[in-house]
């Protein structure tokens, strides 16, 4: 099967069928954090909560969750609207998470946004990211 055109967009995991199937249990774990009692149970003992309630989360996904590897979670099928619920459980907003995923400090990221955000120039294609090294 030919690769989808959207796979050329740099720094982006389009949440298609393949990623949705791969990330199902990771995302459903995040979904469980919509409930306050679940947030408390998870925070009390994260590994135990995962083992007891979400045994189908893969070992790689489990590690990414426990280590809060936000980009890794997306690579393993996580979707930002789900992983942001884990962020909220940690007290992190979407903007806090964006700073972490882009390797910026909160101040740097917020300043970039106030200055107009990340430019489309040089950020449309993976070839542009390769050439800048």
């Amino acid at each position: 099967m030919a690769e989808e055109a959207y796979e050329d967009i740099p720094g982006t995991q389009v949440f298609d069928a393949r990623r949705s199937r791969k990330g199902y249990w990771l995302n459903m774990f995040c979904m469980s954090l919509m409930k306050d009692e679940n947030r408390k149970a998870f925070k009390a003992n994260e590994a135990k909560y995962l083992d007891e309630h979400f045994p189908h989360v893969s070992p790689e996904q489990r590690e990414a969750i426990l280590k809060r590897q936000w980009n890794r979670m997306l690579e393993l099928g996580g979707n930002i609207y789900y992983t942001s619920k884990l962020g909220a459980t940690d007290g992190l907003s979407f903007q806090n998470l964006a700073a972490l995923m882009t390797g910026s400090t909160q101040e740097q990221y917020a300043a970039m946004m106030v200055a107009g955000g990340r430019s489309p120039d040089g950020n449309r294609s993976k070839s542009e990211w390769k050439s800048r090294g």
Partner: protein
Amino acid sequence: MAKLLAGVTTSHVPAIGAALDNGKSGEPYWQKVFSGYEFSKKWLAELKPDVVFLVYNDHASAFSLEVIPTFALGCAESFPIADEGWGPRPVPAVEGHPDLAWHIAQSTILDEFDMTIVNKMEVDHGLTVPLSLMCGQPKRWPFKVIPLCVNVIQYPPPTGHRCFMLGKAIRKAIDSFPQDLRVVIFGTGGMSHQLQGPRAGFINSKFDNAFLDRFAKDPQSLVKIPHVDYMREAGSEGIELVMWLIARGALDDEVNEVHRFYHVPASNTAVGHLILENQR
């Protein structure tokens, strides 16, 4: 008969709701966002709609990966406010209009749009932030709301063309409803933004302003934009803009643009807002 008077398009950034709820709306950062809605609040209060048909997307609040409807029409008497991880927003519950909602469901399905009928649904910031922007902080929302929840999270969302045509079918349904009702349609989401991964913070004001320029006068040029172009040019979450095309499809071909606002940023997002009136 029911009558569609106007359309409103607006971003629905969650941080806008948080700023209002936490009393930060007077801060300069947020004042720049809210200033774009001062006219709009007065305009809507004077228009006094009975019903707002509100197109938005759920953000893994009412629907998870268990069930992913492409077009979910809220037909309930009321819609509770979702807890998105921070506790529910302190805003009034949303009252529906089941008579009109069911009429629209029947009419659009017979027009060959396979709608999902929803009788129980919590609503999240996608729906409540536009209400807050357009109404402020009232004790009760001043109109009934019919939510239309569109999948834009699981790829692929419906195409822009499909959204535009659904808008036309919704208009036909509103026009054929026998009760005298004043209706306004909201299309929400966008504009350019990317929340995920190393490209987060992506903003394309050139794309956004071209979209705004063409929205009233030349929507036909927008309905053909393929998904990959939205994601590449407007950020992976910029694809939400297809929802604006449902509102545009429902309006007359000829409309008056009475208000426009564009501002970067609100948190991670370019805020865009238009008011279009049918030429009654």
